């Protein structure tokens, strides 16, 4: 079974150590968050949003196969 590749942005790259990371497949975004907190405990102290297939997720959502997942800290463009 393949894992998921997650794109990581902004200051979260300092915690993950890279602009992407891989984790085992998970059923939904709540489980994803738990798994990330286990793997990268410093993430618990950070504000960020999860995007699933380019949409920001506000409540727990199933993660399908080949899902595009991204972790987005507060924006600071412009």
């Amino acid at each position, binding site marked *: 079974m393949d894992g998921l590749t997650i*794109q990581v*942005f*902004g*200051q979260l790259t300092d915690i993950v150590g890279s*602009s992407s990371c891989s984790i085992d497949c998970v059923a939904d975004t709540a489980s994803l968050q738990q798994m990330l907190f286990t793997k990268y405990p410093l993430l618990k102290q950070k504000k960020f949003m999860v*995007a699933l297939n*380019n949409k920001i997720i506000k409540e727990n959502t199933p993660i399908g196969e080949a899902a595009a997942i*991204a972790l*987005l*800290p*507060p*924006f*600071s*463009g*412009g």
Partner: protein
Amino acid sequence: MKEKKVRNIFLQGPIDPGFIAGSISKHSTKTDIGGHSIFLGQVRGDVINGKQVAAIEYTAHEEMALEQMAQIREDVFSTYPLTCMHVHHSLGTVNAGEICLFVFTSSAHRKAAIDACEDMVERIKAELPVWGKEIFADNSYQWKENK
């Protein structure tokens, strides 16, 4: 209704004033325009804990940013009677004193262009997944936070 067309807004490095001039020039054939409003973001050389910001390095979730920008464009076109609008945002390194954001709106009468430009700038800063990393002269850095 305008179609929600995804256009690129990103360019590598700073936005050159000559590029801005070129963009203004292109509007001289549109003689229904009476006013243009332009906002330019410039990288500040802030001094933070005794160290000066030398540059900001911008990254973005480009695909999401362009989709969201298409939504902003559609909303703004449906709110204001604009002739046209253009947005450009830097990626990569932009030195202090250089331009990193260029928002340009045009309309027959000034009010629409002015209000739309301000709206766009606020929404771009709040809604586009773009991040700035402030690089100090000694190569240390901190992540920028928008107020």
